[in-house]
């Protein structure tokens, strides 16, 4: 009997230890929106983005970001979210990318130009996808419009514009939009979940941290939207590194093989001045 009890304790201790060493688990926070409403909101907003920003229509660039994106979408946490992710390139020299609720993601030409390797691009895409998976945008909106939102979301008519309704509440897509302005803890979560997506896809998560560090050294926070209001690069790097140790050991060797071609093309694109004010972090 003593033997059984000690064995049971040992098993519990081991189980607890392996659980503690596993990747950090995240769950979407409080949210008044349904997942379907996330998707609707994102698609309506994406249509606005396409109307206001210059979208690249070139198969080489579009296929490239889609290859990297779909690789990350195949990872477990992205699959479980069920969100329909899409990836498009916009002509904007700012080093930035942003994802709308429910999955539409826009990657600036400036970001494609700035990354040193594919894993760094995957890092930014994975980070943004994690905001979508964890529903940070609508979580943020839910918290800020706790009182007004239930009536709006409850009375939502099929086929009606959700964006239109939310704009009346001041939840639009402009600069400082609550849908795209995340808290530091949300950013840290997105870093860690992004590193899960990267690792599962065969990209080295440390490249995400290296890219943040590189941006920090290069231009400072004022000129690089992706860094503004984010945790400091040193802290991010440390947190990502710790998370990588919790992940199963593996080689990070995946590459699409199209990175150099993308870089050659993007080096020759001359973007117009950014038409609209800052859209996201």
């Amino acid at each position, binding site marked *: 009997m003593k033997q059984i009890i000690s064995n049971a304790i040992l098993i519990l201790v081991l189980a607890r230890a392996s659980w503690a060493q596993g990747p950090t688990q995240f769950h979407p926070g409080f949210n008044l929106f349904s997942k379907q409403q996330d998707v609707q909101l994102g698609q309506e907003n994406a249509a606005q983005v396409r*109307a206001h920003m210059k979208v690249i229509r*070139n*198969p080489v660039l579009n296929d490239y970001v889609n290859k990297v994106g779909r690789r990350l979408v195949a990872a477990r946490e992205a699959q479980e979210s069920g969100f329909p992710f899409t990836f498009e390139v916009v002509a904007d020299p700012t080093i930035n990318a942003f994802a709308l609720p429910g999955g539409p993601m826009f990657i600036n030409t400036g970001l494609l130009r700035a990354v040193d390797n594919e894993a760094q691009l995957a890092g930014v895409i994975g980070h943004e996808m994690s905001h979508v998976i964890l529903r940070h945008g609508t979580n943020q909106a839910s918290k800020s419009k706790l009182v007004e939102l239930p009536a709006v979301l409850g009375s939502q008519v099929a086929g009606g514009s959700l964006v239109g309704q939310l704009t009346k509440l001041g939840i639009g897509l402009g600069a400082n939009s609550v849908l795209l302005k995340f808290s530091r803890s949300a950013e840290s979560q997105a870093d860690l979940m992004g590193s899960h997506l990267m690792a599962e896809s065969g990209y080295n998560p440390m490249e995400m941290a290296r890219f943040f560090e590189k941006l920090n050294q290069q231009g400072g926070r004022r000129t690089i939207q992706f860094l503004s209001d984010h945790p400091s690069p040193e802290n991010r790097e440390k947190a990502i590194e710790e998370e990588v140790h919790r992940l199963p050991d593996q080689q990070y060797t995946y590459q699409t093989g199209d990175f150099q*071609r993308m870089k050659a093309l993007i080096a020759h694109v001359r973007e117009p001045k950014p038409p609209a004010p800052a859209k996201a972090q």
Partner: protein
Amino acid sequence: MIAPPLENSVSAKSSSQGSAGVPPAIPEQDAPSSRPLLALIWGFTAGPTCVCPAALANIKSMKLFINGEERSLEGPLTLTSLLTRLDMKADRVAVELNLGIVPREQWTTTALAEGDRLEIVHFVGGGNPGEGGL
């Protein structure tokens, strides 16, 4: 064996009309309007300074693959003239020809050939939908 007599009869009839002085007004009215038309056709097909086969060879349809789509365009074309033809803003786009980037300064001297594969990075939308529509 039946046709010749018919032709003969027609020409005989018209010549008889002409010689009989029956309204020459119709052929005379026709003549001025048909002359420029003929000249136009002549100009297009051969031209007054006829270098016939060579001139025809220069203006021919050329198959190009632009951003993955097969397009048929009248040649000869340089990269610059292609971008103009496609209504794209040449100062902004990036061009890859048969997997190699062509620097902007070489566009005017880069002639395109049948079967060339081009990737042109251009933008649409952003309140300027007419720009570079492809």
